[in-house]
């Protein structure tokens, strides 16, 4: 365990050290020393900006991501379980997935204004597809013996949806959710770079426009750190949700 943690942090530590020493004597205005970036970090982000920018960004991400999960899984269940519906909507889904979500920002701005709703919608519009398409695949792959078991033992309605469809598809759903999370973080920032008045992305652009370069860099660092933290959080949830799945895989490896 300790060895794994050590191995995992080695690379970041080395890179930070390289950055630190390579930039130590830097007089380049755009590439300030790492020391200065780190110095500005606490005052920049742990003050009022935490409440005014960081938390609103994270709240929009959480709402958009949660909405995409709910809609994606629900629609994915419907489409995956219904062959006709699948044949009708699948080409459309492939098209929608191929549209890069950032180009939707101007359109969503026209439709939903420039407030929080637009930003949440941008996040939903990007996060939805990997979740939806993976759910469809997961539901399609439900084991037929298990389906027969449910029919034989009259497991229907809510219990059937949960224990046969959602849990069966959960490895694929989680894979989709993981992709969606990284897309969500990107869109969180992008949506704030257009016509916004708060948020991490907005603040980073402000710093750039105000030539406050160390602060701008500290924003980049903050986003990286948030990404890592969210990924860790995701791993924790995954371990709970997919404990059975990883258990089976471990057993199969042993045999």
């Amino acid at each position, binding site marked *: 365990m300790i060895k794994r943690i050590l191995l995992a942090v080695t690379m970041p530590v080395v890179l930070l050290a390289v950055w630190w020493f390579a930039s130590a004597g830097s007089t380049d205005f755009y590439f300030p020393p790492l020391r200065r970036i780190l110095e500005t970090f606490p005052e920049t982000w742990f003050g009022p900006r935490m409440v005014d920018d960081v938390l609103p960004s994270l709240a929009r991400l959480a709402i958009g991501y949660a909405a995409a999960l709910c809609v994606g899984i629900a629609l994915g269940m419907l489409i995956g379980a219904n062959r006709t519906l699948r044949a009708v909507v699948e080409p459309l889904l492939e098209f929608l997935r191929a549209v890069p979500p950032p180009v939707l920002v101007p359109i969503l701005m026209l439709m939903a204004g420039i407030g929080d709703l637009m930003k949440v919608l941008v996040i939903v519009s990007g996060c939805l597809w990997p979740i939806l398409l993976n759910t469809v695949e997961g539901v399609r792959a439900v084991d037929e013996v*298990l389906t027969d078991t449910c029919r*034989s033992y*009259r497991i229907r309605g809510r219990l*059937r949806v949960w*224990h046969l469809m959602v849990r069966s598809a959960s490895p694929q759903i989680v894979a989709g959710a993981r992709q969606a999370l990284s897309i969500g973080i990107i869109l969180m920032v992008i949506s704030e770079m257009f016509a916004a008045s708060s948020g991490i992305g907005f603040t980073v652009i402000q710093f750039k426009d105000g030539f406050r370069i160390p602060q701008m860099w500290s924003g980049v660092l903050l986003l990286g750190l948030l990404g890592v933290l969210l990924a860790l959080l995701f791993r924790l949830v995954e371990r709970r949700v997919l404990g059975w*799945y990883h258990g*089976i895989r471990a057993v199969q490896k042993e045999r």
Partner: protein
Amino acid sequence: MLTVKGLSKTYDAKGRRVEAIGDVSFDVADGEFVCVVGPSGCGKTTLLRCIAGLLPPTSGEIVVEGRKVDGPPDGLAVVFQEYGRSLFPWLRVRDNVDLPLRAAGMGKAKRRELVTEALDAVGLADAHAAYPWQLSGGMQQRVAIARAIAYQPRVLLMDEPFAAVDAQTRADLEDLIRSVWQRLGVTLLFVTHDIDESVYLGQRVVMLSSSPTTVAEDLAIDLPAARDQLATRSDPRFTELRGQVYAQIQKAKQERT
């Protein structure tokens, strides 16, 4: 109790009509233990899925407890061959046994009682908190049997349930099924490709021909009710019956070629 009348099933496989079951008729009396045995590929599983109401027959009818089967019938449980795929890997053993009872809307206390009893009956009382994949194949099939017992079926169908477990486990499970059947008084239809097993377990053996399947012979097994892996299997009558079933299956195989 269970009547199969003029059952036939044809598939359309890429334009080619495959007649899986030609014309099968037999009866199973209330509380009887009947084994169905046939050469491989004779449509045993198809027959069982039709009886379970999981597959609509092409023609003929199946009557369970006086009602024509047009979907999974009430009070009928199935134990599948693929135990690994028929248990819910995300549910613990006791929750697997419990799920059909929950679906039936049974009260919590009653459910707990039935689950405990059923796990006791199959010798898995200690494993209730494990996940199925943490258990051996034989134990997993015991969980599936416990689930069927807790469901309190009046008719129990088993589809080659011991085909994928090792020989020793298999003998244990055979005796387990005999004792479950004697205790619960269920009507039991047991599909197998193993001739010894069919003679050892049942009161009757229904032998099927090769596809298109018909009933080749319906043989009463007049062995004493108390069966024992050693004594019964060395009984001359056992050998004789086994020989009869074997000869019939061989004949069925040759007719096909």
